[in-house]
């Protein structure tokens, strides 16, 4: 069946469900996965959904691509064309997406070389150890962390004496 001949409401929901489904699948993948490589792939899926949504925003019924060809070159008739602005924006967004994915993959390669794992939590734990080490801080001790275990050790002798005097 020609999609243009479909019921417009059904076509609208088909297109919107497709695009938004891709976005939701991508976001869910980013949230659910522990493996950072899969998170990048999920982000790529979400990006595809976003691009599709932008292209759908420029859709017109019965319109053609915004390129003058054959007969239209003589008549210069541009009235039955889809919106060119979302297409130009998607062109931009695809190229930027490629750059960002390449950068993310480069970082992932480095992380795997350094820590030998792609699990987000393990990588995070290893990174914290490294960061603490480079800042010359004890591994498990930060300024915000309570020192010692509960019950807390009794205060030193001098403070106890001062409290008695007062």
């Amino acid at each position, binding site marked *: 069946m020609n999609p243009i001949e479909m019921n417009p409401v059904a076509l609208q929901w088909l297109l919107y469900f497709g695009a938004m489904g891709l976005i939701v699948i991508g976001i869910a993948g980013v949230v659910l996965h522990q493996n950072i490589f899969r998170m990048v792939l999920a982000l790529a899926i979400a990006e595809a959904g976003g691009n599709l949504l932008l292209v759908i925003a420029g859709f017109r*019924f019965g319109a053609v691509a915004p*390129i003058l060809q054959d007969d239209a070159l003589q008549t210069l008739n541009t009235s039955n064309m889809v919106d060119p*602005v979302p297409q130009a924006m998607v062109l931009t967004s695809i190229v930027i997406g490629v750059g960002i994915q390449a950068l993310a993959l480069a970082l992932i390669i480095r992380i795997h070389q350094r820590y030998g794992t792609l699990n987000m939590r393990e990588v995070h734990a290893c990174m914290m150890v490294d960061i603490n080490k480079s800042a010359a801080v004890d591994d498990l001790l930060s300024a915000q962390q309570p020192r010692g275990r509960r019950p807390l050790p009794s205060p030193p002798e001098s403070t106890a004496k001062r409290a008695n005097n007062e």
Partner: protein
Amino acid sequence: MRNLTALLFSGGLAFLLMVIAWQFTLGDAPMLIGAAILDNAVKEVGAANLVTSVVLGYRGIDTLGEIAILFTAATATSMVLGSFAMTDEASETEQREDGSILGSSVRLFFPLLLTLGLYIIVHGHLTPGGGFQGGVILAGAFFLPLLAIPGRSINHGGIALVEGFSGAAFILIGLTALFSGQAFLQPLFEHGVIGHLFSAGSLPLLYIAVGLKVGAELSGLLANLAGISSHAAEAEK
């Protein structure tokens, strides 16, 4: 528990997106700028491909920013992966003998891909395609030998030269428009006959610059990624 929260979050996101979608009717553009551009682009820019007149004519600075983002991503990638490329001399990773089928098909496809990429770049103002699409095909042409013959190195100096010159050419064309009394990156020259190869003023020149820059950047980026994987394979042996 964590998965349940994530699923709830995704469901809520889907619901919100659907509520937004409910307010738009399909085929009824939410923006008015598109209709105005469709009416005036042929007279004002003179490119048969109206997407090109938006990308380079009306939103040229956006394209410049986009090239800058791509450049930043490529630079950052080579910075993150870079130390191998520095130490990894071509003499160290010996160039392995290529298989005859892979080698001949690469030699066959390289000129074809080069021609196709350049064709798409040069005809960016007439047909679907343009600098970005053609540039990716050019990058594919230069990446093919690296895939077929692991350990083969690519001329990084030449890539940097092409990249620098094409980026400078894009900005110079924009500055020329600025100094001739127009806005930055405004299309120059006569429009010519619409639909001919030499038409649409300076748009084809801009797209050639974009195409060469994208091609050089992406092939450098892919070569970096390929170089590190072949290095890892060497280290495992």
